């Protein structure tokens, strides 16, 4: 992406998603004194230039008090006055200002600040344990460099007093989780951590009381310090992506215009719509709740709901489901269900049922802990018993056992996974891909099959003119002239892709649910579906054609036919090629008609394509593949894809996806190109092998250090050095992510170059 510029077309496309002043006011929070705060999600900001462009654009509005961009969360917080000189202000101008500065802006409902609280608690714990570790280390260094009896005891006592509150405060995350795991009869990384920390503190205290030479206060506190860093990185990564993904509320309307029994209209929030209410939906708005059309005719775009790519005509008594986009005429709907019970709740039910497969997944750190902790505990026990029975010195045995526990404590292991995942997530973030949590990267690295949805994922959901069936050159000019009067997606495509000078007419009317009618002298031209253009007597062609068809008629006689196909998402071909080269199998699961799906599959070179699938069938397809031992990556965007996104091993969605689709997906990509899919897989695989290396390094280090501990030679100094060195090595290795594996990437790219040459030949 070039810095801070967007092409005119995409900005134009944005303006269709603008919200009304009432809707914006509904979302913003009152601050008192006539001020309101509006939070917006702006996914395109990525540098300092963007920050100042947006802030300057907003501050230039007279009613805006403050504007501040948060680059990390990609958000704008804007405070504005409700009234300027007793005239109500129009807050939708804020969105318009951001759009005209060249950025997309979406309304955003702030979530409960629960997550930030956890992050702040973790940071506080890091601060406290860091403070304690630094001070204790200071005292320990004096002890190591030869402080004698009385001074040493005093230093140990001071260390003990600093360590105790720090351990209780900073260690509570680990103790809680370890207790939880043990209570359920499981074990995780936190069990050996808690054990090592508490045991080492207890033994050190005992040593101090008895004027002993060695104490491990520094080890137990700095252990916590390192581990908390890992834990915090993990948490911050998850929150960063989640905040950005939650921030996009592009496709859910916030409310609707309610028609009161006396005919007056007012705007209410979506939660307040009751079943039986009549609501008005203007052309270009999304349907907020399921309902039945009371009056009006229109075409609705169901692509986000069912995956059907061509618009469907609706009239009185048709059912309309929430999420559909009303295209041509305004409609009055009677709500049949409240928002909570609309189509969405059904989908959510399916999602919850489908999530079982993923819930069984155990994170790699836990799997390692299951192997690692019994070995460590056994080692400590054996050395304790060994020194006790063979040496006859039980006190020495205890000290050795504690030294073993500290040296093998999974400090580096605790960092091994989160550091790599944070670096990988940062790398993907720069490429416009958000990762919801670390386990998503682990699962992505294992994927071997990629299932794509069609509409909105492989294709952009915007039609493109692919063929003109006419003998007459002037037909194109007539059609172009007619199409300029409509905002129907097919008309827009016709205008965009025909280059003839448009013809003008005496009068043009748009008939919702049919098409356009124009009069020029005595001639009547009609542009629309077959039934409308040629009169009802003509039987419309069967729905087998992979293309959407528009007919132009002159005085009721078929004059020209235009064929449209969906536009492929940019980079789709390259993405499929790269996936193939990397050894992944691809298939399409779509809710659209089979012929349309076959057409897309053929264009992209995908072998298997399933069309006309219901959300449930998509889930079943995923589960069937899972049953064959395949790890499925599902890529989809619509409401109908959400259950499959939840059922698949791992899932991705474009940022333009429905809210529920984005919520269900593990990764969300913000740029238009489908290249994001192989890119994310490449980074995930790289990070998976780095994680394996890190485990090898950390365990290898322990293997070297353990004999020293068992031999009873591990002074606190050696324990401290061993621990920090292994942590530093692991972190340094994680930072190689960008350089690592680049050569292999090049090989894959080279492979594509060759296959492209073969095709060309």
């Amino acid at each position, binding site marked *: 992406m070039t810095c801070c510029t967007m092409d005119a077309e995409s900005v134009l496309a944005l303006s269709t998603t603008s919200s009304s002043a009432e809707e914006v006011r509904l979302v913003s929070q009152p601050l008192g004194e006539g001020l309101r705060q509006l939070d917006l999600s702006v996914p395109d900001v990525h540098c300092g230039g963007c*920050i100042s462009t947006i802030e300057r654009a907003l501050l230039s509005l007279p009613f805006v008090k403050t504007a501040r961009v948060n680059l990390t969360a990609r958000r704008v917080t804007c405070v504005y006055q409700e009234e300027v000189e007793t005239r109500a202000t129009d807050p939708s101008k804020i969105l318009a200002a951001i759009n005209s500065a060249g950025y997309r802006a979406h309304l955003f409902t702030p979530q409960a600040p629960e997550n930030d609280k956890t992050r702040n608690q973790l940071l506080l714990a890091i601060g406290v344990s860091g403070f304690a570790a630094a001070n204790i280390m200071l005292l320990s260094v004096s002890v190591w460099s030869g402080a004698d009896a009385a001074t040493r005891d005093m230093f140990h006592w001071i260390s003990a007093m600093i360590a105790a509150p720090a351990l209780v405060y900073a260690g509570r995350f680990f103790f809680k989780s370890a207790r939880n795991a043990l209570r359920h009869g499981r074990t995780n990384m936190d069990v050996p951590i808690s054990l090592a920390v508490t045991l080492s503190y207890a033994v050190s205290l005992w040593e101090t009381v008895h004027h002993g030479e060695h104490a491990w206060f520094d080890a137990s506190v700095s252990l916590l310090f390192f581990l908390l860093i890992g834990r915090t990185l993990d948490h911050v990564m998850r929150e960063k992506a989640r905040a950005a993904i939650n921030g996009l509320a592009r496709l859910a309307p916030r409310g609707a215009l309610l028609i009161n029994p006396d005919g007056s209209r007012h705007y209410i929030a979506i939660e307040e719509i009751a079943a039986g209410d009549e609501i008005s939906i203007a052309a270009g708005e999304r349907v907020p709740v399921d309902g039945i059309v009371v009056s009006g005719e229109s075409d609705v775009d169901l692509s986000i709901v069912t995956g059907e790519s061509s618009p469907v005509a609706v009239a009185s008594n048709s059912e309309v489901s929430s999420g559909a986009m009303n295209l041509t005429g305004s409609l009055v709907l009677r709500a049949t269900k409240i928002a909570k019970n609309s189509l969405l709740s059904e989908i959510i039910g399916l999602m919850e049922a489908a999530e079982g497969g993923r819930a069984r997944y155990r994170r790699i750190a836990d799997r390692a802990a299951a192997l690692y902790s019994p070995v460590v505990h056994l080692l400590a026990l054996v050395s304790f018993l060994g020194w006790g029975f063979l040496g006859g010195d039980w006190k020495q045995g205890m000290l050795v056992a504690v030294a073993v526990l500290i040296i093998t404590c999974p400090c580096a292991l605790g960092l091994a996974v989160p550091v790599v995942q944070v670096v990988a997530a940062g790398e993907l973030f720069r490429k416009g891909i958000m990762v919801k949590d670390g386990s998503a990267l682990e699962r992505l690295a294992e994927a071997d099959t990629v299932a794509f949805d069609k509409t909105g994922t492989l294709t952009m959901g915007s039609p493109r003119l692919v063929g003109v069936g006419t003998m007459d050159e002037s037909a194109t000019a007539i059609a172009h002239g007619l199409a300029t009067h409509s905002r129907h997606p097919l008309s827009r495509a016709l205008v965009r892709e025909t280059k003839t000078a448009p013809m003008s007419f005496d009068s043009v009317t748009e008939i919702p649910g049919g098409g356009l009618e124009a009069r020029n002298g005595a001639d009547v031209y009609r542009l629309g579906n077959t039934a409308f253009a040629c009169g009802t007597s003509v039987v419309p062609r069967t729905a087998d054609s992979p293309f959407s068809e528009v007919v132009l008629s002159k005085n009721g006689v078929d004059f020209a036919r235009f064929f449209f196909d969906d536009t492929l998402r940019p980079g789709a071909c390259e993405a499929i090629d790269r996936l193939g080269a990397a050894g992944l199998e691809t298939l399409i699961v779509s809710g659209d008609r089979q012929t349309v799906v076959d057409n897309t599959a053929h264009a992209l070179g995908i072998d298997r394509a399933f069309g006309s699938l219901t959300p449930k069938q998509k889930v079943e397809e995923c589960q069937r593949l899972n049953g064959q031992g395949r790890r499925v990556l599902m890529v989809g965007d619509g409401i109908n894809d959400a259950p499959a996104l939840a059922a698949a091993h791992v899932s991705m969605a474009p940022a333009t996806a429905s809210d529920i689709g984005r919520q269900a997906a593990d990764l969300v990509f913000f740029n238009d190109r489908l290249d994001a899919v192989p890119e994310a897989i490449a980074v995930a695989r790289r990070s998976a092998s780095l994680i394996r290396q890190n485990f090898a390094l950390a365990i290898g280090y322990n293997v070297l250090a353990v004999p020293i501990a068992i031999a009873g030679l591990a002074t606190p100094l050696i324990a401290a050095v061993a621990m920090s060195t292994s942590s530093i090595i692991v972190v340094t290795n994680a930072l190689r992510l960008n350089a690592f594996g680049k050569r292999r990437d090049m090989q894959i790219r080279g492979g594509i170059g060759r296959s492209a040459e073969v095709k060309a030949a």
Partner: protein
Amino acid sequence: MNMLIYLIPIALLMGGMGLLAFLWSLRSGQYDDLQGAAWRILAEDETDQRKP
């Protein structure tokens, strides 16, 4: 040896002040937008100013 009686409390006090400074910076939201803060250094001051 006696100077340790002064020096150790002083060291702890200074460390504690560092900890308090950290707590203050955390409370005042200075860690909310680390990337943005890095860029804002380079930005001209006018965008940061509040309107009267």
